[in-house]
């Protein structure tokens, strides 16, 4: 089973995504969710997930800072960024830092996200 880590302080989004993946991709993905940047960074090192769904704005350490750190340390774990609003400046920054894609949380479809994840992990 491939491991997916969700780092998002929006607990509703994190839970819906985790449960959605649990229902739609039962026995395909094993999903863990944490809610701040510090925890997220620790979990990435601990779990060595196959994919991280990472929120841009996070308490303690932001998603962008985590992404920068991963790039710095040469960690090549694929990252799907999630963001509350479509901020082009931030999106282009995360793409530049090597993110595989992004999710606009104010307007997302679970199906679409799952397809995006499948695509990255296939």
């Amino acid at each position: 089973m491939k491991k997916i880590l969700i780092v998002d302080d929006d607990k509703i989004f994190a839970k819906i995504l985790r449960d959605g993946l649990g229902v739609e991709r039962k026995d395909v993905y094993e999903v863990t969710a944490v809610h701040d940047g510090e925890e997220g960074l620790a979990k990435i090192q601990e779990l060595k997930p196959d994919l991280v769904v990472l929120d841009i704005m996070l308490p303690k350490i932001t998603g962008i800072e985590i992404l920068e750190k991963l790039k710095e340390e040469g960690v090549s774990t694929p990252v799907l960024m999630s963001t509350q609003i479509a901020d082009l400046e931030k999106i282009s920054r995360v793409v530049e830092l090597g993110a595989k894609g992004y999710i606009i949380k104010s307007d997302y479809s679970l199906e679409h996200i799952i397809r995006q994840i499948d695509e990255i992990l296939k």
Partner: protein
Amino acid sequence: MDVLLGTILGLVGIGALVLSVFVFRRAKRVTAATLAEQEEMRQRMYELAILKEVGDRIGYSLNIQKVADVIVGSLNQFIEYSTASYMILGPEKIAFRADIDKAVSHAFLDDVKQRMRLSLAAILDRDLGKVPLEETVTGAILIEDQGTSVQSFFNIPLVIAGNAVGVLTVAHTKAGLYKEKEMTMLYKIVGQASQAITQLEEVVTLERGKLQAMVESMQDGVLMTDTGFRVLVANSALRGAVNIPLGRELTIFDIVDACGGVLDFKGRLEESIKLDRTFVAGEVNLSGSIYQVFIFPVKSATAQGLGVLGGGVIFHDVTRERAAEKMREDFTSMMVHELRSPLDSIKKIGELLRTPSIRDDKASYDEYMGMVYQSASNMLELVNDLLDVAKLEAGKFQVQKKPTSIRTTIEDRVKFFDAQARNATIKLDFAFDGHVPDTLMFDPVRISQVLSNLISNSIKFTHPGGAIHVHALLHTQGRSINEEVTQAGLSWFVKDAEEKFKDLPNCVVVSVTDSGEGISSENLPKLFNKFEQFATSARSGEKKGTGLGLVITKGIAETHGGFVGVGSQEGVGSTFYFTITA
């Protein structure tokens, strides 16, 4: 005795004689005085008549030469002369006009000219040797008679607004003319004319100054060119926009350069002048501001009808409008997001809960129900806030004031947030000054809402381990609020309070001070503005709520007849306060 008597009688006789002579003389003097008075009256009347006529003929002319023409043309009515003339120094020439009343020789006129040139040079303190004369000679003819030389000559300087501009002269072939009477008269006429022009000039200068000041102080950039595209007028806003400081020459090419490829400035201006058409030429970005450019022909009414004098250009600064539009867009998109996001979540939760494995997991089910409740509550709160703001903006916001205990109201709110603060490991307490009257007139529901807004905001922005202090104190009219705050032992970050509380009647000041992250001085004034606050948090991507709470807080305080205020020290803490009339 006889001698003494004789002496006395003699003395009396002399006394009587002296007295009678004195009386006679006095009588004679009185008659002379009356005659002099009569003469003076007659003279005054005459002067007035002349002055009036000269005044009427001068009218409201600002042209000293025209005025001098009138004076010279009127002089023969009351003063005898062979020639009356003036010399006025122009930019390149000296205007000379002579009115000849009795035929004189060329030599006479040359002598007059020579004398006038000398006195003009003396008055102006300038060497006029090379300045040519522009001559006009009217009246009697010039003759070749050697006998007519200048015998009487009188010269008056023409002074406008304290500056000598020329001389006026009368000359005669007869000697011994131009005594005090004539001279006084001439002085009066010239003096009055000069004064009239001086006053008119002052009025015109003042009016022109007003117009100039208006153009100069306009927020919009204003430019005017003549038909040859030479810049005639450019105000500081325009210079600022194209970055050409005052004192440096500004040409049409500076504007063309500044507009760059965005706008065919000169082409449009040419078209405008030639075709007499007005253009809204589009928008340009200059020195960090956005300007809408209007180009139009400048016309003036002349005898031949409307004539185009040149081109006018207005750079209308629309930076603020554009920023406000952007803010409104941000506001709308944030609103949509704030409402759509929880609705979307509820919908997705509904979908997931149809899956038996999730629905049957009790813990998961409860968690989802909690989320549905929270999302719905948030949306309801937002909708209520939006309605409040709409009412405030429409001026339809109302409060129901009734006698209520401010102490109980505050206590109640502090208790309500106690658990939340404790969860965040924040110390929340409140203090109540002894002088504060317990019962005040206010709407308990709305004031509770204000307290909730302020306390929940403070909790949101205060780090664990921090403290929030709610305080009520009485401000007494005429006392310094800063002193009162110090006396209450209150830590308070407000810096502009003194001015706001000056002359304010007694009121209760309720403040919420936190040891939070503080607010930058740049953002402070934006806090109570719907669009600004919203746009700020939208841009930074921070999840700090809609910012509507403070707009409503301000509205509630103001509807109560009080006001809100804020002060902060970045990294140290903030104080929000509101007042209620005591």
